[in-house]
Each structure stands twice: as C-alpha cells, then as structure tokens.
C-alpha cells in the first residue's frame, strides 16, 4: 500500500474506534479516550524524537512527565503567603547553597589533579551536604507546619494554568540538560538504566518533599482552563442552547468541558507535530538520522555527536514535560503516587514501537491506538470472560477468579501486542520513510 494511503487508512481506523466508543458506549467516554489519546500522542512524539530519530534509549519518560505535572502546581496554585513568610527565603537560600556546593565540587574535579582531586571533591560534597541540611531542615519544618492539613507547602505563583504547559516543558528540559550532561556519554544499556533510575529519583523527590507539592498528600483542585460543569448548568443561556441540540444540561456541560480540553490539546499536538515534521525533513533531521544510523561515520564527517544527542534529548524530554503538564491540568490534581513506570514509561514505549519509530505520524497514531486499547481492554475482557464463564455454575471459585482478574488482562494484552508488532512488523504500523 502507498505509504500516504496507509497513513490515511490507519488514522481513519483509529477515528472509527473512538467514534464507535461514542456511539456504543457514551460520548463522555469517547471524549475521555480522545483527550488522553491526545496527551499520549504528545508523549509518544517526544519519545519518538529521542528514539526513532536519534536512537537514544530513554526509559525515564515518567520523570519528565512528572516534572510537567509539578509545573502545573508551581505556576497555577495561589502562593501560601504564611509559608513564604515562615521559611520561603531560607529555603530558597538553602537550595542555592546546594547548587553552589555541587558547582564547587564540579570545579574542584575539573581544576585539580592527582590524589588531591578526589579528596577535595568528596570533602566539599560531604561538608556541603551537612551545611545544606542544617539550613534546609529548619526552613522545611517551618513551611510544613503552616496549616499542614490544607497546605503545608509554598504553593505556586497563582498565574493562569495554561502558562504551566510551556513551563512544564522548560522544567523537563532543564532536568534533561543536567541528566544529559552526566549520562549521555554512557553506552546504550547503561544509559537506559541511568535514565530509569533518574526518573525514580524525580518521583522520590515529589513524594518526599512536602514543601514543594505536598508530597503524597497530593495537591487537588488545580485551576482549569475551561469552565466548571456546575457553572454551565446554572447558566440559563447554556441550558437553552443545549436544549436546542436536544441535550439535557448535565450531559451537555460535561461534553462541552471535555471538548474544550480536546481543542486545547489538539492545538498543542498539531503545533508540535508540524514542528517535528519540519525538523525531521530539514537538514537537521537528516543529520540526526545519519548520526543514529552510523555514529562513527557522522563523527568522521565532523558532526558533534555529543552536542546533537544532548540537544535532541532535551527537546524530546521537553515535549514529554508539556504532555505531563497537560495531563495534570486535565486531571485537576497532582498525585505523585500515581506515577508508575509501567504506565508512564513502558506504555509510551509501546505506543512508539507499535506506531512506527522514526515516523512522527506513526508515534501519534500509536499514542491514540494504544491508549484506546489500554482503556477498552478491560470492558472487552470483561465481556469475553463473561462469555467464557457463562457455562460455569455461580459461586464456582474459578469463575469468580477469572471475572476478578479481568483488569490484569491489560498488561498481558500490551505485552502481546508489543511482541507481535516487533516480530511481524518490526518497523511499526506506519514505517519510517
């Protein structure tokens, strides 16, 4: 099949799946799938930039997504003034001090040589750590003791929530720069495990540092870029218009809100997709693929491989950060405990591989398709299990067990899909051109 025809057919198929959900289940579920599909497509686009185009094996997607989520809190929540008064300044001072210590240690390592080098750096780090903790701990304690049940953190800047999307990207990009500087020199498998570990560190910080985003106590009720359903239902003009479409006010308001998110997400996805396509088709994109396919040759041609890798690592991670901010905005809450590698790293990888690594449209397609399956495998599995067990007597232990374990079909299905695609269509549904 002609590649562009194939692309159209595949996208038509996914649209049909989501429309089918609307017709057979409900438009609310269809829009839920569409919205998270849009977010997933953005994540897949970021990973595709790193893996598909540059061949960088990043298994730390979860960390960047979580940083995007953090940005939503830092930007949109109103500041907690008492907490700032209690220890804000000291806390910022402690963080700057920590940075200064690390910078000093790096300088010591660079400037000195011989035996002195290692000891000086270790000494700086150890002494620095205790000084840092001595300044940080009382500040943290002061902040966390301000109304711990409701706040106990510094809050954010109280700016419009949409601003947090680019900021989420910047935050992830900054983290990616630091990680890239330290880890990109490693060989493939070592880099993979290092990124996996760094993502875990990001989540550990989110969970443990209550002053930052309340830790595992979660931040709920984040501001929204779209109106609240209840306000729409109380607005006579909206109710009248809904009635004009033959809808009741409740359904109309929930659909309206979700459509609002869809429009915003779609705008972001389209902008990023266009940029990614332009980048891929530009000399820069050709250079990246040349580096991916033969690093030695590219180096011999005078390309600065290390710098290019760092660049694309930062760009891809920034896109994941934007997606993370979008997702937290959609959820309206930041729950650090919900960041699991299976869901936020490995599932995104399944999307990229299944969609077609190296093909931006493929990554987007994979994002929609895999998210659709992730959501629909459960009801579908339920149906299959009900059919399978229909012959068994009620109260049969096996029947109960099978019906209870339907939810675990998800992981199994994702694994099977990934293996089948890797085996029979290793370049994905939409292969790279």
């Amino acid at each position: 099949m002609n590649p562009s025809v194939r692309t159209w057919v595949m996208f038509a198929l996914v649209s049909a799946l989501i429309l089918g959900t609307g017709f057979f289940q409900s438009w609310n579920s269809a829009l839920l799938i569409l919205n998270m599909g849009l977010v997933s497509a953005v994540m897949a686009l970021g990973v595709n930039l790193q893996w598909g185009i540059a061949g960088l094996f990043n298994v730390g997607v979860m960390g960047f997504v979580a940083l995007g989520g953090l940005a939503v809190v830092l930007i949109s929540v109103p500041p907690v003034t008492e907490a700032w008064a209690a220890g804000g300044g000291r806390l910022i001072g402690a963080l700057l001090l920590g940075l200064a210590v690390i910078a000093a240690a790096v300088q010591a390592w660079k400037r000195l040589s011989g035996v002195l080098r290692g000891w000086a750096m270790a000494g700086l780090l150890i002494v620095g750590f205790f000084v840092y903790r001595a300044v940080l701990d009382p500040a943290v304690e002061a902040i966390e003791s301000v109304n711990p049940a409701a706040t106990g953190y510094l809050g954010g800047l109280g700016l419009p929530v949409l601003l947090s999307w680019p900021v989420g990207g910047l935050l992830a990009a900054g983290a990616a720069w630091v990680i890239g500087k330290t880890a990109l020199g490693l060989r493939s498998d070592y880099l993979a495990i290092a990124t996996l570990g760094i993502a875990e560190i990001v989540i550990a910080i989110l969970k443990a540092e209550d002053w930052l985003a309340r830790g595992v106590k979660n931040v709920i009720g984040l501001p929204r870029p779209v109106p609240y359903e209840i306000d729409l239902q109380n607005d006579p003009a909206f109710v009248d218009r809904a009635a004009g479409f033959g809808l009741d006010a409740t359904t109309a308001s929930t659909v309206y809100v979700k459509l609002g998110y869809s429009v915003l997400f779609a705008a972001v996805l389209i902008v990023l997709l266009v940029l990614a396509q332009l980048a891929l088709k530009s000399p820069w994109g050709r250079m990246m693929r040349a580096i991916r396919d033969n690093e030695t040759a590219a180096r011999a041609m005078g390309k600065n491989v290390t710098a290019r890798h760092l660049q694309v690592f930062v760009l891809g991670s920034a896109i994941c950060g934007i997606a993370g901010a979008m997702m937290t905005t959609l959820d309206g809450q930041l729950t650090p405990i919900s960041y699991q590698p299976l869901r936020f790293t490995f599932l995104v990888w399944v999307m990229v591989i299944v969609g077609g690594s190296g093909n931006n449209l493929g990554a987007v397609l994979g994002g929609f398709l895999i998210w659709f399956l992730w959501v629909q495998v459960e009801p579908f599995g339920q149906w299959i299990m009900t059919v399978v067990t229909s012959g068994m007597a009620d109260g049969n232990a096996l029947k109960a067990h099978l019906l209870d374990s339907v939810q675990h079909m998800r992981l199994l299905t994702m694994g099977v899909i990934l293996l089948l695609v890797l085996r029979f269509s290793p370049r994905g549904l939409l292969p790279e051109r």
Partner: protein
Amino acid sequence: MDLLNAIVALSNFVLIPAIAYGSQLALGALGVTLIYGILRFSNFAHGDTMAFGTMSAILFTWWLQSLGVSLGPLPTALLAIPAGIAGAAALVLLTDRGVYRFYRAQKAKPVILVIVSMGVMFIYNGVVRLIVGPGDQNFADGERFLISARTFRDLTGLEEGLAIRTTQALTVVTAVIVVALLFWFLNRTRTGKSMRAYSDNEDLALLSGINPERVVLVTWLIVAALATVAGVLYGLDKTFKPFTYFQLLLPIFASAIVGGLGNPIGAIAGGFIVAFSEVGITYAWKKVLNHALPESLAPDGLVQLLSTDYKFAVSFVILVIVLLFRPTGLFRGKSV
C-alpha cells in the same frame, strides 16, 4: 559511652538487615549479569521472572501445607523451591523458544532485545497477576526468630537487643551455598567453562566447537534458579506482592551495573554496596551514636541522612556516581 551496645544496635538495625537484603540483591543481580554476559542484553523482565518463580513456589508451598507437610522450625517454602525453579525454568525456556531465539538468529541489535524484554515483562507481570492477583501473599511459616531481642537482652544483660529472624539467617546461608555452587560450576565444569568462553568471545567459542544453543539453554536454567531462589528468599524475608517484585528490578540493575555488567563477582559486590548504602543512608543513627559517643557529643536530631522515602533513589544515586567515574562499573564490566 558504651561501645558494646553501639555494636549490638548497629548489627540489629543496619548490618543484619543489609546483609540479608544484599544477599537477595546479589542473587538477583547475578541473574541479570549472566544474561547480559551470555545473551548480551539487559533483561527488563528479570524482576517479573523472580515473581513468577516465587509464585510457583508459593502455590506449591500451599499445596504442601494443605497436605500437612512441614519442615518444623524452617519455612515449608524451602521444600517448594525446586518446584518454583521448575516453573520459572519452563517459563523462560518457552519464552526463549517463542521470542528471543528469533532475534538471536537474526543477530538483532542488543537494544532491540531490551525492547523485546519489555514486552516479555508486561506479559509475565500480567500472567502473575492473573494467577495469584495483585495482593500481598504470606507464605512464611515455621519459627519466626532464631534469636529474639528479649532473649538476647536476657542472655547478655545488654541494654540493646539483637533480633535475628530465621529468614535472615536462611537468606545468608542459602545465598552462600548458591553462589559457591555457581562459581564452582562456572570455573570447574566443562559446561561452565564453555559459558565463560562464549561470554568472553563468541566467535572464538563457536570456532572451538561450543554449541551456542546449549550455552543459552544452560544460562536460562541457571537464571531461572537464581531468580526463584532470590525471589523466595525476598518473599520470606519481607512479603510477596507482584508489584514489589517489578520494583526490585531497579535496585537489582543498580547492583549489577555498579559491579559491572557481565561480571559475577561485580554483581555480588554491587548487591552489598547497594544494600548497605540504602540501609545506612536512610537509617536514623541517633541510637548508635548515643551509645558510641561521650554524652557531651550526643546528637540532638535523628541523624538520618535522608528520609526513608528516598530508599529507592539511593541505589540510583550510587549508580549514577559510579557510572560517572567508572562508565562500566567498579569491576570493569562489558558493554555491547
């Protein structure tokens, strides 16, 4: 100032737990390292292989218990380990047949195999949850303590108690036996030597008539055994929950990498380094210091370097630090 009490407190809260945890990590890391050395990829499904082997052992334990079989003071699960190994071995051999062999024949790039192992990880994870569910399973029985804190205090008259759980003692003893067997096998037997030759230089090994499929088969069998033993020991010592085993992948990889991938001695050293740092950095040292230091120097705070929330993060900080200075680990592992 009371050095004896300090030593006892240190052993009770740091040394003994870290040695037990380190042995479990070392066994896990040995499996990862063997696969890396011989099959040449990082096996993301290793944590879930452990979970599957442990689950098989648990199911067999329950069956034994229902028959009234027991080992007296020792946990019945010890009897079930061979059955668990058989389960895990069947699983990994089937996987190798159905999945990995295809890519081996194709001489696929190592990173493709890593991605394939991600798919295998999803499947194992799903299968284990389908069979035993996602919840906690308790299968520890027998005597709880080798020596309890109270008995120790009564015996020695010291202020601090020392408790050694049966499972901790068992972990260390089993780990020593398993590691000794493994090294004997790798260094002394013909098959073991051919495995090492294959790991060092594949082409040379093939030239000298080593059958690669046999080497791969034996490797998977050993890996299944190591994973099951590590998993059962961890499950007895702590608890069995499928998700915990998936999470164990992270410290296990950290151990294998800190030591140097592909290097068995490195894997063991790495396991203990990671375990000791995890326990040491998140332990509140106040008690030990109170005993060890003169009263005037006694600390006010808990003297905890990092909160216990950072337990997982610690192994990675060590990993990153080691990789920064030694890109292939402390014992100079391979890189493909």
